[in-house]
């Protein structure tokens, strides 16, 4: 295959995949059929493009070819036995539904409906992330397995089951109606943020962070924001991920070890991304009052990112933002983060008191950051023995090797 044809095909297969699967599966009512048709079209392109040249609109060519292959398959299936037809659920309107795809018109972006299907609460939570990565982000199945540090067979099984449920239970491949949007959007944002956090602090493997996985979540967030520009929490989540991602280069040292926020070389931070993230936060905060949890977390990240040095961080502002976040979404983890900020404003004793109160609640007994925060505050108060014990407890509880090495070194 010639270089251009190959490169174009690889790009379309990856970037155009989500759009094509969305369009085809909504019309076919079946994601498997949509994927099969798309696979057929990609194979046809691999054969013809090097010979006949790359078409003017490669994505539209793929989509039109996929449509034709889908119709061919459906016609073949019609000739089968009645019971096979019943299982395949071929309806005459499928052909009609496919008729509006033509190879010259601009391709509509219907990915939003596909995202809502992939993140539907009627699917098991562990299926939603691989499904979104595969269908919307267009990652190959082995890539999904690597990204999630799961065996390929596990990923394959989850994808098969989830796609079958979407088809047989009638999970719509469409955006929810306005009145159902808020409760459904939450599930979508959770999936995208889960993908991001897996990239930000990997739960397994050797590295602290995996930028490819985090980058995929950012792309998904960008798609959501482009498709729903008026949803404040979508903007908030994109801002949050953008601001965290902007600091990624400073989060690890040359050996891959963890560097705390206070010790990071701020010249390594991506200033353009921080400015973009800051604009998004401002927009998110203007869009909804009271501000939602993602917008508030993004605002906290913005205060950190915009401080010229760790010493110049506006901790008082951060405590206020955590107060607002606690009102919006009370959780012991948020309370812990607030306690750390309180220590910066009111001193380590006040911070430690707040941490001990959360520890007494018991919900975070096995949460490494609680022990790490306790350890740090004890060290600052000069109680070295207690601090070392707390560092050891934190090291024993974290699953990330870079984090464990960092904590164990202080124990």
């Amino acid at each position, binding site marked *: 295959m010639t270089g251009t044809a190959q490169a174009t095909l690889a790009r379309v297969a990856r970037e155009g995949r989500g759009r094509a699967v969305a369009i085809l599966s909504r019309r076919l009512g079946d994601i498997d059929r949509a994927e099969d048709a798309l696979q057929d079209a990609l194979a046809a392109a691999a054969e013809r493009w090097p010979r006949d040249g790359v078409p003017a609109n490669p994505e539209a060519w793929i989509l039109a070819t996929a449509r034709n292959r889908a119709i061919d398959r459906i016609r073949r299936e019609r000739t089968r036995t*009645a*019971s096979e*037809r*019943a299982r395949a659920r071929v309806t005459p309107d499928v052909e009609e539904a496919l008729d509006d795809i033509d190879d010259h018109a601009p391709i509509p972006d219907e990915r939003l409906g596909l995202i809502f299907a992939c993140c*539907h609460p*009627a699917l098991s939570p562990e299926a939603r992330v691989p499904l979104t990565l595969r269908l919307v982000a267009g990652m190959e199945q082995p890539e999904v397995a690597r990204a999630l540090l799961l065996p390929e067979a596990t990923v394959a099984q989850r994808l098969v089951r989830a796609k079958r449920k979407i088809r*047989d*239970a*009638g*999970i*719509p491949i*469409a955006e*929810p*109606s306005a009145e*159902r949007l808020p409760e459904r959007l939450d599930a979508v944002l959770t999936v995208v943020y889960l993908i991001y956090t897996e990239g930000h602090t990997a739960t397994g493997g050797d590295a602290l962070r995996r930028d490819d996985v985090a980058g995929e979540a950012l792309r998904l967030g960008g798609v959501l924001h482009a498709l729903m520009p008026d949803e404040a929490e979508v903007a908030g989540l994109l801002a949050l991920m953008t601001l965290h991602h902007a600091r990624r280069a400073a989060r690890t040292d040359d050996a891959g070890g963890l560097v705390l926020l206070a010790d990071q070389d701020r010249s390594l931070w991506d200033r353009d991304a921080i400015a973009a993230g800051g604009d998004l936060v401002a927009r998110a905060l203007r869009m909804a009052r009271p501000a939602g949890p993602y917008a508030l977390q993004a605002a906290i990240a913005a205060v950190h990112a915009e401080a010229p040095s760790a010493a110049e961080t506006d901790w008082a502002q951060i405590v206020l933002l955590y107060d607002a976040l606690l009102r919006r979404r009370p959780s012991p983890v948020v309370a812990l983060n607030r306690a750390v900020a309180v220590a910066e404003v009111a001193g380590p004793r006040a911070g430690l008191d707040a941490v001990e109160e959360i520890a007494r609640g018991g919900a975070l007994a096995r949460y490494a950051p609680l022990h790490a925060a306790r350890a740090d505050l004890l060290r600052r108060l000069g109680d070295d023995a207690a601090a070392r014990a707390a560092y050891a407890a934190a090291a024993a509880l974290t699953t990330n090797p870079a984090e464990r090495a960092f904590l164990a070194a202080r124990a």
Partner: protein
Amino acid sequence: MRYLLLIYGDETLWTDPTPEQMAAEMAAHQAFSDATTAEGILRGGEALQPTTTATTVRVRDGELMLTDGPFAETREQLGGFYLVECDTLDEAVAAARRIPEAAVGSVEVRPVMEFD
């Protein structure tokens, strides 16, 4: 698509209902069935006698075995069902959430397998 909405609840709460409780329950279900009939999605539905009236049938090696009661010991029992016709799961869930028992017990939404 047709969906069966299976209503589960703790039937011991209903062993000795007061007339007021009974009337309120009947009115709530009447309201549900009136609304879903008006929307054109209701295809049927029944309330069931309690599980103490149930008999379970099994045939093993050609031999009939009858046992008293339902198969499983669970806190929630099947108490009734509605059959609705909806385009998507979201619409079936929207119907199910309006069933009074959804607020105290649970409602399982199962698509009906359709044959040509």
